[in-house]
């Protein structure tokens, strides 16, 4: 995802500064956009890992499905704004069903969740190829044009993306940390048997939590669809960044995901500014290595 984003930026620069007036300001805005995307994609990953102990290698494919939902909504002649809630609902259901059929059986065995979700990611990509072929599909930007901000002209849709992503992240975080639903999820994480014995239907709550994690990825997919090509492999560009965020931020507190996204976005944006996209990738990987080396546990990162 780092490379893709940077290429896009370089391309738009070369195209003759239509949008870019002040390179630094727009780089900062790119950084904010990258933060928002990282945060919303990593959040779902953080939820299912932190709360359910599942390492979901198919999370990127949930983003991919969300992007195809946006494409189908467009083909059906409907507004892109409709695509965002529809993607959320489709992925909530798909995620809930996957939890029921697959994940439920392997909670106690983290190594199996890796294999199972890896297999699932392949299946989802193959299905996408079967239905949509490998062709690049495009979703039309619903708000072409640019908006002046901080002295530069910046693509309006990117502001929309930031606003929607940040809203979804905040609402999801509040749901998991402040609501009765969030409390029941915490109880299940703390002690599933005791939660059952308090009358909590842990199987329903688990399906719902996994579904919500998938739904945030679906929203992310629908949001990024107009920014690039929609194709079966698109999920693969998002997964490494999201994992990096989860590693850096940690998931022992969900807010860690947001801070992790902030750190990763800042490091990447800074590296791109002072050097290039390749160095940004290397720096990101080093960051992960350092955190993994010195982290207190598999669930805690630098901040949570």
């Amino acid at each position: 995802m780092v490379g893709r984003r940077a290429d896009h930026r370089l391309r738009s620069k070369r195209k003759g500064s239509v949008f870019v007036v002040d390179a630094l300001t727009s780089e900062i805005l790119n950084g904010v956009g990258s933060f928002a995307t990282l945060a919303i994609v990593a959040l779902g990953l953080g939820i299912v890992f932190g709360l359910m102990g599942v390492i979901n290698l198919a999370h990127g494919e949930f983003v991919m499905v969300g992007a195809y939902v946006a494409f189908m909504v467009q083909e059906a002649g409907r507004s892109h704004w409709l695509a965002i809630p529809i993607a959320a609902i489709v992925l909530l259901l798909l995620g809930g069903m996957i939890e029921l059929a697959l994940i439920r059986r392997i909670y106690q065995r983290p190594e199996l969740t890796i294999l199972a979700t890896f297999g699932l990611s392949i299946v989802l990509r193959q299905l996408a190829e079967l239905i949509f072929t490998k062709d690049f599909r495009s979703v039309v930007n619903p708000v072409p044009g640019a908006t002046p901000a901080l002295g530069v002209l910046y693509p309006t849709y990117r502001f929309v993306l930031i606003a929607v992503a940040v809203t979804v992240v905040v609402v999801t975080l509040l749901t998991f940390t402040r609501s009765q639903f969030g409390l029941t999820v915490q109880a299940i994480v703390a002690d599933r048997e005791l939660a059952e014995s308090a009358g909590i239907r842990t199987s329903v709550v688990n399906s719902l939590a996994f579904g919500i994690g998938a739904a945030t990825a679906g929203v992310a997919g629908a949001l990024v669809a107009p920014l690039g090509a929609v194709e079966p492999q698109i999920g693969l560009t998002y997964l490494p960044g999201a994992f990096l965020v989860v590693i850096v931020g940690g998931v022992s507190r969900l807010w860690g995901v947001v801070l992790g996204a902030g750190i990763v976005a800042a490091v990447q944006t800074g590296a791109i500014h002072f050097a290039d996209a390749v160095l940004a990738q290397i720096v990101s990987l080093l960051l992960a290595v350092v955190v993994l080396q010195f982290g207190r546990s598999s669930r805690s990162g630098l901040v949570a």
Partner: protein
Amino acid sequence: MRLQATGLEAGYGAVPALHGVSVSVEQGEIVAIVGRNGVGKTTLIKALMGLLPATSGSVRLGGNDVTRWPPSRRVRAGLRAVYQERAVFSELTVRDNLRLNGLDASAQADVLEMFPDSLIGRDQQRAGTLSGGEQKMLASGCALRAGASILVMDEPTEGLQPSNVDLLGKHLSQARDDGLGVILVEQHLALATSLATRFVVLEKGEVVASGHADEPDIHERIATHLVI
């Protein structure tokens, strides 16, 4: 309502720890389960709740065969438990523990007042920072106020000072008189004797003796199984 286990077999891995145990309790009575360490009392409690699957035999609750029901469904049907270990969510606050047990504000206040010296004013504390005895009192209070018809309790007096044992006894006999049925696993024989209407003695995963509290030789019969 009646909780009835018949020929219950359950255990860990290949080895069963219960070999065909039958026990029952009606609403309004307390049945004491006694036996030495490791005879399968906790295993029985877990099998009654559904935390351990029954490999044979059945559990009925009211009119339903609940043998294959998950614990939460049994809870919704009127069953509750207090466990010997990990009786509360130690990572969560006392208040959150009360909320998770589905108690409304007034029931939450009731629970704290059941053991006033131990629980009042502690509601914002993590339950894990309560002492072992205090955690037990919190768990018992939650279970007693949660509106269950049948309660299974695994050594609720473990770690309680004598005055709190008396207090728990008072709450239990009150609840029994209000129509609660209790299966009470108890090492504290004096309490069991003062509360129970019936006794069941377990040994090596089997019921080896049982009887009503008013049978003249009941205490001698229990004692012969408990002395080493």
